[in-house]
């Protein structure tokens, strides 16, 4: 069981180590969120043939800081008839659900906060907590629009967890382990050892490559639905429900919702990278391979998935609720089942 956190070796298993281990991903997520805000603004601007923020700092680099300062100084409004406890708790529960998944994501060979054997299973279980937070936020706002947004979003989240889980399960079958670190290590070598291309193995794996590619696509689409991004952003449906489940939130609580959304985007991108794209492995065998290079490759791959998510947001229109359900249940689910069975068959016959 390779999770030998070198910090444990350095400081010994005591409270300081644990605190450092917890805070490092938090710092990373904070920095990443700031950069993601800027990336979203700039990429959306470039797609729409404009420049985006240019005045705050050179080429608008300090825009995220301006946004954080703005949100910090906003008035914190609570609707009169809102259920106070649930209303205040909701943003934090969503963020907890997103952040808790960071516990098992391997950033590099030597750094995974908790390399448990049930890594993938844990990620799925913990991710569902976000759904609870969403419903709490929508219901506790005492607002028809928020309630509609919350109800739609719950249906969406639950429906799309299943194709995502099937995609992950197939890879678990291929790699015969749920431990994220083990899956990562199995993909060492050139990039054709990645599970996107069938995983490590002989040329016989050519049979399974189309299925893993389809599964990667299915997982990517489900991840868009899990994070409420266009084309699945019905819960935030701007044109219809004003702002969906977070209509009544302002200031820092609203910021928490968005912070949680960006954290969630990174989590699903990280899982996709770990499982399909080789995680912290370099695509060029031993060139640029190593513990520090590992973090670089991991972050680079995850961030490019995030950029693709942002890109899609500004290109496609959004689905209607029933069409969304149709796609989830009647299109993605059967296809993922077929791929799962094909991969299981391949593993059995191997």
């Amino acid at each position, binding site marked *: 069981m390779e999770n030998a956190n070198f910090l444990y070796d350095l400081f010994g298993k005591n409270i300081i180590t644990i605190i450092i281990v917890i805070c490092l991903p938090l710092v990373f997520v904070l920095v990443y969120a700031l950069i993601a805000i800027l990336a979203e603004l700039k990429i959306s601007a470039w797609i729409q043939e404009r420049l985006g923020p240019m005045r705050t700092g050179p080429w608008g680099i300090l825009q995220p800081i301006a946004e954080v300062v703005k949100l910090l100084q906003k008035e914190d409004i609570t609707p009169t008839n809102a259920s106070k406890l649930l209303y205040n708790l909701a943003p934090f529960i969503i963020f907890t659900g997103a952040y808790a998944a960071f516990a098992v994501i391997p950033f590099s060979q030597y750094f995974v906060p908790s390399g448990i054997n049930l890594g993938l299973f844990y990620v799925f279980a913990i991710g569902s907590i976000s759904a609870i937070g969403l419903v709490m936020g929508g219901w506790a706002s005492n607002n028809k629009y928020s309630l509609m947004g919350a109800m739609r979003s719950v249906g969406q989240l639950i429906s799309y967890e299943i194709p995502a889980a099937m995609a992950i399960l197939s890879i678990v079958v291929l790699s015969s382990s749920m431990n994220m670190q083990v899956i990562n290590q199995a993909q060492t070598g050139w990039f054709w050892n990645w599970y996107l291309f069938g995983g490590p193995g002989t040329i016989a794996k050519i049979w399974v490559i189309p299925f893993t590619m389809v599964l990667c696509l299915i997982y990517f689409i489900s991840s868009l639905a899990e994070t409420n991004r266009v084309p699945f952003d019905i819960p935030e449906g701007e*044109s219809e429900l*004003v702002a969906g489940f977070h209509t009544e939130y302002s200031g820092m609580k609203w910021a928490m919702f968005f912070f949680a959304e960006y954290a969630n985007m990174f989590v699903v991108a990280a899982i996709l990278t770990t499982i399909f794209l080789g995680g912290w492995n370099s695509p060029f065998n031993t060139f640029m391979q190593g513990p520090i290079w590992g973090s670089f490759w991991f972050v680079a791959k995850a961030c490019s998935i995030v950029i693709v998510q942002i890109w899609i947001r500004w290109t496609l*229109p959004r689905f209607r609720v*029933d069409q969304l359900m149709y796609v989830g249940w009647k299109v993605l689910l059967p296809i993922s089942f077929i791929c799962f069975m094909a991969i299981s068959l391949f593993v059995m016959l191997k």
Partner: protein
Amino acid sequence: MSDKKRLDLEYSTHDSDKMRINVGPQHPSTHGVLRLEVEVDGEIVSEVIPHMGYLHRSFEKVCESMTYPQIIPYIDRIDYISAMNNEWPYVMALEKMMDIKVPEKVEYIRVIAAELNRIANHQIAVATFGMDAGAFTPFLYFFRDREYILWIFEKLSGARLLYNYFRVGGVSGDIYPTFKDECLDVIKKVRKTNAEVMDLLIYNRIFIQRTAKIGILPADVALSYACSGPVFRGSGVKYDLRKDETYSIYDRFDFDIPVGKGEVGVKGDCWDRNIVRMHEMEQSCKIIEQALAQMPMEGDVTAAFPKKIRPPKGEIYMRAEGPKGDLGFYIVSNGSDKPERVKARGTSFVNLSVIPEISKGYMFADLILILGSIDIVLGEVDR
């Protein structure tokens, strides 16, 4: 007659299984201040009651105390997105009453200005329709192109949006030297962006799924509700005032009238109305090219201005094909220089009346798209 009856009506027929939602008056998607009272059963709409009047500026009352030329800026503000097309039926009506013949050059300038404004209007219509469906990017592409058109108008008339350009007997100012080249340039850009948006938005699978088979308007219902413009043509009826009741010099141009054919859904659905607008932009480009080629370069645009605008006692109803449909003016003159009555028949006022009929039975998300496909502007609805 008690007007309070309306307020009671709302609550007495309230079915407790269904939810009453207000869409508007402030809402990102109602294209102005319009309040729709929607009764939904879960997600299915069972009744829509529009409440308007938030933008009522008593245009008709104001006109009775102003002289005829003073009214023209007010007419701009009826359909503030395509002001050139608004002014045209009004000045045509007065010219007919006073028997004035405008110079050739003026006719060509009017045609070009009106068609450019038609393109600008359809750009906004399609852009906001896409935004209602969730696609944010075509909105910015179209607004970028619209800027070029507005720059031309600014050089032509002095204003970007509300021009006060047409006058009884001509237009207020001649074209500027580089007008022809700039118009041809704009047409090139418009064609390029249209091709791009066709790919990006109109034939996009998700967009088609959202807008096809929604808000189906049969042709006979549209006729009874007196719809006009792309709303009417989207239901398959080939009726356009520029061809069927040719005014000005439209008979000299060769252009087509696009109609909805039910290409990806049912004839008369939202997608059809939208594609009619996209094709009409192309047809307007054709008209502008022909007009620029045929336009005489010499001529004084103010030659036919009458000394005093005092139409003889009488009345007239004149209509012209605006981008949203036929906009009509009913002018009653009592021989003085102020009109007795000016009635503006707003296209969007009539087109909007069809909403309660065509949105029953669809989902709530579709209602927003149906409203967007009708393409209303509240200035015309409320005047």
